[in-house]
């Protein structure tokens, strides 16, 4: 048993929909023919009910697997697209992960470097007395329709659990460089980024700042650039990552694919997403370099340990990448991101006001999907109640917490409802039953005609239930997805 600081577990999440860039160009190419060069491959596109919070939850679950979550002392959520300006976004993630109230949670934001900066802070902290830190980053980047960004960006999230013990990758150290280099910016309240010239960004920003930061990190650790086995340079612009690797003296084969063709740049989440993906393939002894760019540059270096050989084989970024559905409906993509208005009809006028007292009171049930188990009869149920649903027992107050979120389920009844309002009709829902007992009515998402049948296997996902448009409040809850 070693006592080293480093990465204990890793994971990521890529939403199922993959917008075909050619379909964007087919719609906006008449206006901006220059986009043609970017109109190849696909980008990850979150569904209407996904945001950085829900995606962070999914990455965290991917990272944690069946690990004991009580080891987590702290979690941070990094993003430049956090949905709430004044409500702790990481706090919602904490509830969804059903972590104890003694967990510290914080949001990290401000630049696309927020993910690596939070990760570096966490690694420094756990080297001291802090317990394990779950570092999350997620991004649902919003770009103006018909912009280059729309084609370059992607939605995804990543999770890195850091701490002391027997890491799969020990932290060698890192450096940060900060300079108010404004390649793009977005003022509070604005929808979209504003960009300066790409050539200046490449030549004065990436080439100078990133290469300098890499050099400083390597010097600090007395490492030579050709020692690096996997280099994460999270730049999806054509040729940039290759050029930076070359300038920094990193072997070209060490460059980790920036996922331009499959995901697009997931902003603050991108370095960690690529890191999690790289760790899925890494072997003991390898040196990994991770760079994060934004008003400067973070560089972190890790050495993969023998513990990597015991990593989980299921799940991971590669599994999420394989779970994909091509989406060629550009209008649907715009609608899901509130970039185009469609007539949602009178049924969408239903007032979704949430009584905050009730949400707080029921936060375990609503955000954590925690039900009850009767300590007397063993009956499990959702939600928990003072008197068990067991028809043969009317004891009061015998239930203990019983979490459902990680339990598999199956379909008992279902329908595809075209009458009720849904941004993605028809809305599938039905009664589902969990392995080990317990039932609920659940919305079934990420599915197509033929995916849902009585008996079909399901898993749960944390998603947006609805938005209270009148007051600007998002309702979150758990939904079921096919678990084939």
């Amino acid at each position, binding site marked *: 048993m070693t006592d080293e600081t480093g990465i204990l577990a890793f994971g990521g999440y890529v939403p199922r929909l993959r917008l075909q860039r050619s379909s964007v160009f087919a719609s906006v190419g008449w206006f901006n023919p220059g986009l043609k060069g970017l109109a190849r491959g696909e980008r990850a596109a979150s569904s209407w009910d996904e945001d950085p919070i829900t995606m962070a939850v999914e990455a965290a679950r991917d990272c944690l697997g069946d690990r004991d979550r009580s080891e987590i002392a702290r979690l941070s959520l990094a993003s430049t697209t956090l949905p709430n300006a004044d409500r702790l976004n990481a706090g919602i993630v904490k509830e969804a992960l059903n972590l104890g109230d003694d967990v510290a949670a914080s949001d990290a934001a401000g630049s696309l470097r927020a993910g690596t900066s939070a990760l570096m802070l966490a690694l420094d902290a756990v080297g001291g007395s802090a317990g394990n830190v779950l570092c999350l980053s997620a991004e649902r980047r919003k770009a103006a329709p018909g912009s280059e960004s729309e084609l370059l960006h992607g939605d995804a999230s990543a999770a890195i659990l850091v701490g002391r013990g027997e890491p799969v990758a020990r932290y060698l150290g890192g450096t940060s460089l900060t300079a108010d280099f404004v390649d793009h910016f977005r003022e509070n309240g604005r929808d979209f980024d504003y960009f300066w010239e790409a050539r200046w960004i490449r030549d004065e920003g990436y080439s100078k700042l990133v290469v300098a930061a890499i050099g400083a990190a390597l010097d600090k650790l007395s490492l030579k650039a050709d020692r690096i086995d996997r280099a994460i340079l999270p730049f999806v612009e054509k040729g940039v990552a290759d050029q930076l690797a070359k300038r920094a003296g990193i072997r070209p084969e060490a460059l980790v694919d920036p996922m331009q063709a499959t995901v697009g740049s997931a902003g603050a989440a991108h370095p960690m997403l690529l890191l999690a993906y790289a760790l899925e393939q890494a072997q003991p002894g390898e040196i990994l370099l991770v760079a994060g760019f934004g008003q400067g540059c973070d560089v972190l270096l890790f050495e993969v340990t023998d513990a990597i050989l015991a990593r989980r084989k299921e799940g991971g970024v590669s599994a999420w990448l394989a779970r994909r559905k091509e989406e060629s409906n550009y209008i649907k993509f715009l609608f899901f991101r509130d970039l185009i208005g469609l007539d949602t009809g009178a049924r969408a006028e239903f007032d979704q006001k949430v009584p905050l007292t*009730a949400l707080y009171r029921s936060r375990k049930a609503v955000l954590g999907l925690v039900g009850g188990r009767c300590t007397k009869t063993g009956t499990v149920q959702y939600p928990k109640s003072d008197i068990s*649903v067991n*028809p043969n027992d009317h004891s009061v107050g015998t239930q203990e917490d019983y979490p459902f979120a990680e339990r598999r389920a199956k379909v*008992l*009844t279902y*329908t595809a*409802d075209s009458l009720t309002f849904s941004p993605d009709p028809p809305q599938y829902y039905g009664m589902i039953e969990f392995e080990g007992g317990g039932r*609920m009515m659940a919305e079934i998402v990420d599915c197509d005609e033929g995916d849902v049948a009585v008996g079909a296997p399901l898993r749960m996902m944390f998603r947006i239930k609805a938005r209270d448009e009148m007051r600007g409040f998002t309702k979150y*809850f758990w939904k079921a997805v096919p678990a084939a």
Partner: protein
Amino acid sequence: MPSGIKDKVAILGMGCAKFGERWNDSADTLMVEAYQEALADAGIDTSQIDSAWLAVAYDAVNVGPSGIPLSMALRLNDVGVTKVENYCASGTDALRGAVYAVASGAADIALALGCEKLKDTGYGGLPVRTRGTTFDMIGIVGSAPGNFAQLASAYSATHGVDPQDLKRAMAHVSVKSHANGVKNPKAHLRKAIDMDTVLNAPMIAEPLGLFDCCGVSDGAACAIVTTPEIARALGKKDLVTVKALQISSSNGWELQGAGWDGSYFHTTRVAATKAYDEAGITNPRDQISLMEVHDCFSITELVTMEDLHISKPGTAVRDVMEGFFDADGKIPCQIDGGLKCFGHPIGASGLRMVYENYLQLLGRAGERQRQDNPVFGLSHNLGGMPNQNVSAIAIVGLHDA
């Protein structure tokens, strides 16, 4: 086992408004229309009513809270009026209040009136509404057809019925109710349809198409009840009495517990058993003369035939296809057109069903009158969703039966 209310209460008079898209009429007008008919039938005046119950389900497009709207519309004599809201079973529950008041001796003459003004929503189908704090945080804001459509997937799975066969049986249910509605001047939809029309209609919630869904209508229905003795004293000769009134509400077992397969209504089975016991009916398939059941959707009517112990589990598809429930079948079901064609103004429906049975038992149903001297008429309401509902059953019959 309680002694029950069999024959303790007689129906003194009933009335029913014309159901439909009553664009130019308020809820008050509908209430008065049903009430006037009931009052004339009862042969009394307003001053003789001791107590009243009002059934309405949707506040958002209706008369507002409390029993006052009924008292005001009918200009009752400052008697106690209770508002009843129990989903689609509200009308039958209002009748239960009035019947229990008379049976207990607390009232000599009591009134039950149900009303709903659905066409003020601005769109087709039922309004979307809150179901309470906890439900809204974790429940599904699905549509009524979406909730009931789930019966079909579960029924097919449980009984091994091919979904296409089930769809055809469901279509037969709708075709039958349309054929019946043609003969009813107070029905909302009065046009016959064929199987192909039903089978090829646009999908609302799989597998329910447009014609698998009942009419969304405005309407009101009313009953005035008293004791058989008072009814006779008031000059009534042929008495229709209440044989049974049973309501069962979900306690959460269906959705939260274990064992329910989603293909039937647990509460209807419970209420039906109790109602037959109360009415002294031992073989409903032989003894029930005609039925008005809660055919909010074709699949609901089909499974209800089993829940009422008329068809054995898994055999309703066959009974339906063989015409057992057609107007000229052994037990006609929805001889007035049902919710499907008479229309479904939520609060009024339970009382409208009893109204049809009352007319049939007295031989006053006009062109659609059964000629084989019906004895027992059963009506059945379902409120809520299959997994969480209230079932109400009222059996009325000839006093001497």
